């Protein structure tokens, strides 16, 4: 079964696959025929009077070893698809064939999730071979169905996907992207934006899962290692990059965004493919996908570079998928933090946190999305707390009060220079870093799957270590408007010469590159907007603080309301 090679266009020759390539569909056809053969041998009992509860799961423990799975798959499964599922699939298929976006969205967001909760809470949906006859072997539908099928296994089946399923899911993405990218003209398919985003997001997520799974070779059997060793091209980083780059190019999305930013009509440069919503949106989401992928590899420069055509200060037509917005800001914020551009990180994170605060109720009905957003929300507050400890500055009041409520203790510990606290916050809030190359299978004992995390962690903690005394110095500076060097040196219990070094370090670290204009997030100029600033003149430190007058607005509003209430109850007494 594993002798199947991935489609030609995704088999990287030496380093990366060229795109598009003739013959890419050969594999496709081959697999399809194999699948049909398998289907023809299946006998699906057609039982109408089955109640939904009679649903039988033919699959055993998904954690079987590969050999067993292979034999098992060839057996004839006695599998009964309940009518409610059948009907759903037929409606779903019809919606896609009719290109009724509203109905597709309904089936995708409501129907599928409802049935999942009812029948497949922790078990897989029926395999595509089983549902194929129900949808007359509709190839496009089956590829899309499998996208959902594997995604559901990753998300809901407790034991997670088997290696076989990881491979199969990869092949299915290859099929899907080949279908979209290798067509002579634009394919006639429109899908809801949310789904298109989910496809790109999941594609990278599964690559991430596979890479992490692959690097944990200590716990693997020899068989499994041999399978991995034998298939270096599956979930290869070049293939993943290639898919994203190809989608970006096919859609001319960068050109479109440039024209859009300058006030022109993006359609005029969209080209044959880019005019279609499917290509345009996949192109846009691929840019965000690249941001994420580069961040996972620790390449923060390239991560921000791929977004250069996007103007985040202009409301854009591409930003209607909240999950995409949130992902974008999370990674941009994280990149800025790692680049010691704290002011930009703080601006980015507080913007998106405010956005979540205001729109959160809207997602309450969509449990999965809501959970996802809540999790991201916590991570971003943690990142913001870290950045504000390193670079104190004023932020939006409502975000600030949330922060005080949840993170006051953590921030205090970090201010006191508690490295443990930085470490635990960083590991909670950082993305799951990964290694782009397979581990050395011959020396499993020395391979550490946490290495990519440890590298990024070290870079961050090194930076924190360099700044560790700054919060203490700041706390003294805050108390004075002028302070002799010798006096502060006394407080800090160090010679004046050493103090001067720390003060220069303070100024160096607090002067960050800050974005000022244009669409490139990499550009900017040096600024220091930190709360406390100072300069040295001869032996004296002159300090400039930021003083915030007491806020009285809230107080008055509360009193106005109170007064109103009193008058109302007085009226009632009369």
């Amino acid at each position: 079964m594993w002798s199947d090679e991935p489609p030609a266009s995704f088999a990287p020759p030496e380093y990366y696959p060229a795109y598009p390539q003739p013959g890419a569909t050969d594999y496709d056809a081959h697999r399809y025929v194999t699948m049909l053969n398998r289907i023809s041998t299946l006998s699906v009992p057609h039982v109408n009077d089955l109640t939904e509860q009679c649903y039988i799961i033919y699959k055993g423990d998904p954690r079987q070893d590969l050999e067993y799975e292979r034999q098992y798959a060839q057996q004839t499964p006695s599998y009964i698809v309940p009518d409610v599922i059948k009907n759903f699939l037929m409606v779903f298929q019809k919606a896609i064939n009719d290109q009724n976006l509203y109905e597709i969205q309904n089936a995708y967001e409501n129907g599928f999730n409802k049935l999942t909760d009812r029948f497949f809470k922790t078990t897989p949906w029926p395999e595509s071979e089983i549902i194929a006859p129900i949808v007359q072997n509709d190839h496009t539908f089956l590829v899309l169905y499998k996208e959902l099928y594997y995604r559901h296994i990753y998300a809901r089946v407790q034991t997670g996907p088997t290696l076989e399923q990881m491979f199969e899911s990869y092949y299915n993405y290859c099929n899907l992207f080949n279908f979209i990218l290798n067509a002579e003209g634009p394919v006639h398919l429109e899908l809801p934006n949310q789904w298109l985003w989910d496809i790109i997001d999941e594609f990278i997520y599964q690559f991430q899962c596979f890479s992490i799974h692959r690097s944990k070779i200590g716990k693997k059997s020899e068989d499994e290692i041999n399978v991995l060793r034998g298939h270096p091209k599956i979930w290869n980083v070049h293939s993943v990059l290639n898919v994203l780059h190809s989608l970006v190019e096919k859609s001319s999305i960068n050109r479109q965004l440039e024209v859009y930013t300058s006030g022109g009509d993006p359609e005029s440069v969209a080209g044959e493919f880019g005019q279609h919503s499917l290509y345009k949106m996949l192109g846009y989401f691929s840019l965000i996908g690249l941001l994420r992928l580069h961040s996972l590899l620790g390449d923060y420069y390239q991560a921000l570079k791929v977004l250069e055509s996007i103007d985040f200060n202009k409301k854009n037509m591409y930003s209607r998928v909240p999950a995409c917005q949130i992902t974008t800001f999370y990674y941009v914020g994280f990149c800025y933090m790692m680049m010691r551009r704290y002011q930009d990180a703080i601006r980015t994170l507080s913007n998106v946190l405010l956005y979540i605060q205001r729109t959160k109720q809207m997602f309450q009905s969509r449990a999965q999305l809501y959970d996802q957003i809540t999790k991201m929300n916590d991570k971003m507050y943690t990142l913001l707390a870290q950045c504000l400890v390193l670079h104190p500055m004023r932020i939006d009041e409502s975000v600030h009060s949330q922060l005080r409520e949840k993170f006051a203790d953590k921030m205090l510990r970090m201010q006191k220079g508690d490295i443990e606290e930085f470490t635990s916050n960083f590991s909670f809030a950082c993305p799951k870093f990964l290694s782009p190359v397979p581990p050395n299978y011959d020396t499993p004992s020395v391979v550490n799957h946490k290495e990519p995390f440890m590298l990024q962690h070290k870079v961050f903690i090194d930076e924190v270590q360099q700044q560790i005394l700054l919060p203490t110095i700041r706390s003294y500076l805050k108390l004075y408007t002028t302070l002799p060097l010798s006096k502060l040196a006394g407080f800090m219990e160090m010679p004046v010469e050493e103090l001067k070094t720390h003060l220069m370090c303070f100024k160096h670290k607090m002067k960050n590159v800050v974005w000022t204009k244009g669409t490139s997030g990499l550009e900017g100029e040096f600024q220091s907007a930190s709360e406390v600033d100072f300069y040295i003149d001869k032996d004296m430190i002159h300090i400039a603080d930021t003083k915030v007058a007491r806020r009285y607005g809230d107080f008055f509003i509360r009193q106005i309301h109170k007064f109103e209430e009193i008058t109302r109850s007085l009226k009632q007494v009369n």
Partner: protein
Amino acid sequence: MADAMRAQVGALLKGIDRYNPENLVTLEKYINMQAQENTYDLEANLAVLKLYQFNPNHYQTTVAAQVLLKALTNLPHTDFTLCKCLIDLNKQEEEPIMKVMHIAEMLEMCQFKSFWECLKIDQELSASVHVITGFEDSIRKFVCHVVSTTYQTIPFDTLTELLGNIPESQVKQWISKYGWSLQNDGNIYITNQEENIKTKNITEKITFESVAGIMAAYK
């Protein structure tokens, strides 16, 4: 020459082709050129480190060390951090990378005196640094940047020390380059910092209209 090369490399790094390890030969040559001709191209250098990340068998310690040293010449920008994020931990423990990491830390913490001492004493390190044309002057530029943001006046001797105890005539060149002035009392006047560094007062401003809206709700 450098510009032509920059354009050529720029074309090489477009799209998916930036991950082609066959480009490494050209890119490594380009790094060498940057070192010799005192030019700098962060994006190309990061592309090299990324290719090493994807193809560990192509990794060359000396090239990586050159990239890191070049990154230091662009302080106060955080290029060094960006490069560090792409070099495996075990490779960071090899020489001369480890030494470069060490001086980078001193520079980031503005321990300029220790930095110059280290450079003077450590033969291997100064040999690596020697390959990078204009390295020391780039660091002096960074020193001047930090001084110009920290001091209103600084003693001549202190500045000399921060610049690595160079001859008086050279210190004077740096002073005039930045438009500073040497005063009679032996101090150098940097700039009027009072103008830039001021206490900020933030007060809440509430307009009549916004209060009126609330009052109007209760009639």
